[in-house]
């Protein structure tokens, strides 16, 4: 039971690196401006690192007269200014201390190294039209498995793909990537991601297209599952996401995913909204439905609807207040509600701290569980 609880907490609270769609609050409706992967997640490009250093992170540890230009120039690998255009290594670490079930007899505290990734991007051609990106992630063994004989892979490829943008508006990508769907929020196991099998380790080999113009952004992908997995459980299918850029400060989108393995059909559809509220602040909304059906028995079907709402309030440069509310309801009538406030701080470039408190409740037609409160403290750094 403890093993299950720990794994559940890791999955609920851990975050994947560098996927912060709430920076739509700065007017960036597309992930492609700051990330090599145009749908977000994975390493930041040079512009994204400079933006993170100068717009997102505080200046608390700099002299007042330190120029923004210098801060941006020092946003490269280990605080350096890149001397060439083609070689971009990076490291990423995220650790978490969590206190579970605050105020209850079962209250306990645990430290988890959630993520330790090494990435390399190589860029080629005129205007760096070609690039390859590969990330190896160290996956620490959960404490709960310390005494287990179960083998756990300690390293895995988070992504490895090549990209080609023949023209600025169009990109073609092939390899192991996250699937295109919905808002790629940092909390990879939020209901909007876990229900749809879009979590930290759900990348899939495949081909993706990205197109963007000032009024629309379109992503589409055909995937064949993660080739490291056993062939019979690989989900093969396609997904797409279309965003209408309402203004340069907000977008409205729809997503669709349809896939199947030898055992399971997986279908998902969602609508989402990302918008700016004031200077640097934002609102993210997503609502969707997922249907999983057993291939051998079509009556064995699980329908789940979910909702996600997040808002980030930029109190000052480097300091955010965040609120999150999530909802999921299964066809049995049972539903879960999770919400909580938090603080996100970027005290200086390449460093992030998050403090969040979550309340979770489960409801069914007959009963509802007692409130549980959990405290999460994260440190995230990248070089």
């Amino acid at each position: 039971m403890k093993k299950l609880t720990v794994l559940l907490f890791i999955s609920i609270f851990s975050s994947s690196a560098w996927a912060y769609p709430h920076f739509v609050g700065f007017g960036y409706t597309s992930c492609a401006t700051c990330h090599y992967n145009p749908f977000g997640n994975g390493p930041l490009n040079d512009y994204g690192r400079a933006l993170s250093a100068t717009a997102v992170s505080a200046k608390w540890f700099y002299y007042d007269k330190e120029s923004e230009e210098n801060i941006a120039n020092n946003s490269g690998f280990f605080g350096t200014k890149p001397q060439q255009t083609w070689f971009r290594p990076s490291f990423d670490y995220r650790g978490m201390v969590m206190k579970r079930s605050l105020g209850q007899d079962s209250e306990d505290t645990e430290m988890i190294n959630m993520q330790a990734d090494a990435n390399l991007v190589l860029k080629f051609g005129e205007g760096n039209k070609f690039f390859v990106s590969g990330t190896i992630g160290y996956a620490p063994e959960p404490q709960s498995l310390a005494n287990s004989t179960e083998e756990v892979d300690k390293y895995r490829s988070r992504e490895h793909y090549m990209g080609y943008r023949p023209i600025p508006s169009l990109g073609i990508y092939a390899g192991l990537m996250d699937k295109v769907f919905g808002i790629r929020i940092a909390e990879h196991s939020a209901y909007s991601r876990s229900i749809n099998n879009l979590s930290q380790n759900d990348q899939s080999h495949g081909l993706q297209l990205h197109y963007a113009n000032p009024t629309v952004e379109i992503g589409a992908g055909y995937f064949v599952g993660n080739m490291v997995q056993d062939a019979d459980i690989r989900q093969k299918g396609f997904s797409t996401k279309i965003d209408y850029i309402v203004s340069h400060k907000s977008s409205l989108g729809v997503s669709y995913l349809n896939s199947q393995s030898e055992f399971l059909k997986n279908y998902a559809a969602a609508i989402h909204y990302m918008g700016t509220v004031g200077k640097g602040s934002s609102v993210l909304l997503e609502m969707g439905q997922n249907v999983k059906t057993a291939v051998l028995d079509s009556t064995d079907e699980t329908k789940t609807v979910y909702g996600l709402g997040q808002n980030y309030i930029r109190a000052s440069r480097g300091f955010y207040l965040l609120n999150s509310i999530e909802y999921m309801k299964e066809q049995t009538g049972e539903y879960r509600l999770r919400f909580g406030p938090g603080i996100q701080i970027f005290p200086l470039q390449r460093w992030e701290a998050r403090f969040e408190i979550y309340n979770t409740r489960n409801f069914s037609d007959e009963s509802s569980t007692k409130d549980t409160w959990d405290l999460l403290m994260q440190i995230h750094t990248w070089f």
Partner: protein
Amino acid sequence: MAHEVHILGRLLPVGSFEINSDKLYGDFVLLKDKGTINSKKLSVRTTSLETGIQLRDEHLHKYLNANKHPRIFIKDVIIKNFKGSGNLTINGVSKKLSFQVTSDKTHYLAKFTLIPSQFKLQPASFMGVSVEDNIELTIKVLKQEILPK
């Protein structure tokens, strides 16, 4: 009260940003007998233009040569039947413009597309992201500031 300037720029490969100033100054007069609105000069201090990000503001002011050309202005504005014209000067380069005027409750709005390179502005680029040589400029004029002559 001052009038406003809003500029929408597009980023390459993807994205956009807005430049704003609410410090556009100038006098308008309504010539009732001719049914026209005139302004001899509307101007905005170049360094009053802001993008919401300090580094981008610094780059913008440098890009617009704010030290050498501290003001952007439009002269000899004539608006009649919601059609307008005027001479816009950016970076010390003047161009005659024609534009349509629309109206909301509080403002008259003039919107037009500009090609920055026509004002001898060099291509703007930073860390692999560049700005399209095509921007949308909107001028918002407070109705209550238009005085009858």
